[in-house]
């Protein structure tokens, strides 16, 4: 089936198998391997991408054909003009990642969360990220990172540590 999607601002037209999952379309057809697959059952959230600018979706539970005509933002689309997104900066600053496998999905969930709720409380953050599993951090530093990003000015700090 032919589909047209806009991913990270670029238009793509592709012929895909109807059963191809959005996660594999992004990873294998477009080469955007930042989106990960961790559980195949929609529990872990490693595959979360943002649909139409504000909706976090699990791309392992969506067919590529369902994305036809939609805009998708993946982790690769967060950095703009060589500047890290405040969430990326905050995850780095607050040690919000260890093995890095859950990080792209976690970042995209937090991105959508802040779109809906720019100043979330700790419990709102914890609830907001409860569809994303992390085995390394115990979530505490991820919560701190989201709090930092929520208070960051429009221009994030530089990338030098």
């Amino acid at each position, binding site marked *: 089936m032919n589909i047209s999607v806009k991913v990270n601002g670029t238009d793509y037209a592709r012929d895909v*198998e109807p*059963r*191809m999952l959005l996660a594999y379309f992004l*990873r*294998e057809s477009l080469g*955007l*391997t*930042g*989106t*990960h*697959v*961790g*559980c*195949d*059952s929609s*529990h*872990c959230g*490693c595959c979360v991408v943002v649909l139409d600018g504000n909706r976090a979706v699990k791309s392992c539970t969506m067919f590529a054909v369902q994305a036809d005509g939609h805009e998708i933002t*993946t*982790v*690769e689309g*967060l*950095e703009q003009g060589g500047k*890290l997104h405040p969430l*990326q900066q905050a*995850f*780095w*600053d607050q*040690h919000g*990642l*260890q*093995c*890095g*496998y*859950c*990080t*792209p999905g976690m*970042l995209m969930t937090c991105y959508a969360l802040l779109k809906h709720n720019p100043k979330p409380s700790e419990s709102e*953050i*914890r*609830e907001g*990220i*409860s*569809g*994303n*599993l*992390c*085995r*390394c*951090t*115990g*979530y*505490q*530093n*991820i*919560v701190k990172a989201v709090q930092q990003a929520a208070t960051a000015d429009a221009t994030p700090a530089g*990338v030098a*540590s």
Partner: protein
Amino acid sequence: MTTGQLPERHAIGAAMKRKEDPRFIRGKGRYLDDIVLPNMLFLALVHSPYPHAKITKIDKTAALALPGVKAVITGEDLVAAKLGWLPTFHGFDNQMVLAIGKALFQYQEVAGVVATSREIAADGAELVDVQYEPLDPVVDPYQSKLDKIILRDDREQKTNHIYHWQVGEREKTDAALAASDVTIKERILSPRCHPAPLEPCGCVSDMNGATGRLTVYMTSQAPHVHRTAFSLVTGIPEDKIHVISPDVGGGFGNKVPVYPGYVVATVASVILGVPVKWVENRTENLTTTGFARDYHMDVEIGATKAGKVTALKVSTTADHGAFDAAADPRKYPAGMFGIVTGSYDFPTAFAEVDAYFTNKAPGGIAYRCSFRVTEAAYAIERAMDILADKLGLDPVQLRMQNFVKKEQFPYHSPLGFTYDSGDYAATTKKALDIIGYDALLKEQAEKRKRGEFMGIGVSTFTEIVGAGPGKHFDILGIKMFDSAEIRIHPTGSGIVRAGTRHQGQGHETTWAQIVAEELGLDPQELLVEEGDTDTAPYGLGTYASRSTPVAGGALALAARKIREKARKIAAHLLEASEDDVEWKDYKFNLKGVPGKTVTMKEVAFAAYTNPAPDTEPGLEATYYYDPPNLTFPNGTYIAVVDVDKDTGSVKVRRFLAVDDCGVVINPMIVEGQIHGGLTEGFAIAFMQEIKYDSGGNNLNTDFTEYLIPTALETPHWETAGTVTPSPHHPIGAKGVGESPNVGSPQAFVNAVIDALSPLGVTHIDMPLTKEKVWNAIQGAQSKK
């Protein structure tokens, strides 16, 4: 130690931000499944639906007829290629790669289908027609013990018993127990669970027909060991094998063993001459690879009326599943279980383990712990609480009066270990002060009057990590040293390689900090590389908290070798004799002439442009470090819980971890490791269990049933530390990644039992689900 003098350079002791993060936060990590090679095929495995069954027929016809399917491989095919069986790491058993004649556990790998896409491979796997004749399964190790059904007819000895291991003095311990004023005895289960890293296991095997060289990209915590294992199993010379472990999405012990998928993908690549990728799905991960624990421990402690311990005896029945695939050193089939005397000065002790086959998945890996240390720490810390309850003593008081004292180190434990250092009383005192223990006791007393269930649980554990001294520990006969190689470039930056392979622990940062501290260089200009067997020096890998204790030592000593050579060059530059040059404040100083100095950067340039006469040009060193002893991190953890008596739900109100892991290289990373380990300990205490029903069916085959804590359930963690350096480690560090997982489960359980103690509840086996806690409350109340 000159800790903290170079904060701008982020040397040892600085909370330096991680050097590996820029690629991960951009989605530019390179994990196994991100690797795509030209003409690559995909492998899917066929699994047995039965836990125990004769295989009467495997028909490949329909699968081979599917367009895109290139090969179907069975156990018989592998036997013909002499690859039917795989030796397990500690050498007591062989594991079938694919089932041969009989399936021995549910989900066992029976056949492999290789095809042009992962979807066609999965379709092909569905079309392999396997005929089974179900047999009665043996699920319970206590049933297995009776030998009524012999599971492994391939073995010479017709018994399900795998081995007996013991340490300590049985008769002396029995006599001491018999003579004790007070004794306790409890069967304590450390239940079967699974590490479940978010990235599952996988590989891309690529046999190059032209060069005869096999490259295996794999999710490996120990790439060199895997290269040697591949060579031993296949007969391919080791120089013709290249193992690359790319970014690893969590390991926790799951990625130490060699699994059938790696072998079948490699065989397929050899047969077909193209690369073959195998990546397991979550169900395959939970049902076939690397389970942990499953120790049923009968624990006895003797004590005087005043609460001085007199003896400890632990007899364990271990369920190893269908094959003995435990990843333990050869001389230690039960790993470091001898640490079971913990932080306490037992005059005598005895421990034994008997391991049995059952129709369950093989494993027995060290899930975020040194070999079998989590089981041991859980047994002793749970049992000390049961003893305190029987004596009517506060559990902290009982611990305090039995601790190994600071002045007893190095301490020779009755089960044969020499503890390096610690100050258990000071660490515990710090924890009690921070948490406000006395106030909590008061609050609890008031709540009990009102019939509310509040519990305080303590764990004062000692871990044993850093395997290890080569004279005791080996994998496949290879001594458990580790290695480092440092090359300093002419302009003063450098590359650092080690035999370890991080999976989130932050080696790219901390290894640079160690070398920077030793050489006075900028850690930002020291590139750390691991995981490629063609370039890294030979090492035993990352697990059992051994990276810092072993490779960390190798790094410091390799750097010191460089410093010694650099001194010669510095003397040449200073036109002085070597004896007049000293290393101080991160540079070479001419003694007695203030301001006359040479930096390591200047030395590095001279090493390539103007080395001293008779000095070999260049500035690099390699060191293989065989540690003289293990290290013994320890800590005091305190959990405060409220139990809802109507629902059985447990709320962890506070949790404090005070860790002593010796010298801290990067406090931010150490704290992160502790947060993560506590979260896994919490999961093991309350949620995670791989359970089988009486028919041998695995009941926890995906994340719907195998519960991983989310941010909602996970408590807020409070952390603190004390520093008792390891006396034998080159920088005094002990390792920390696993302490929180080893130390915490019993703190949670002790807290819940403490909450329920007014009802007379003395023990509940993990995981403490609402149902189990509610049943314990109901059972206790109905007895009253």
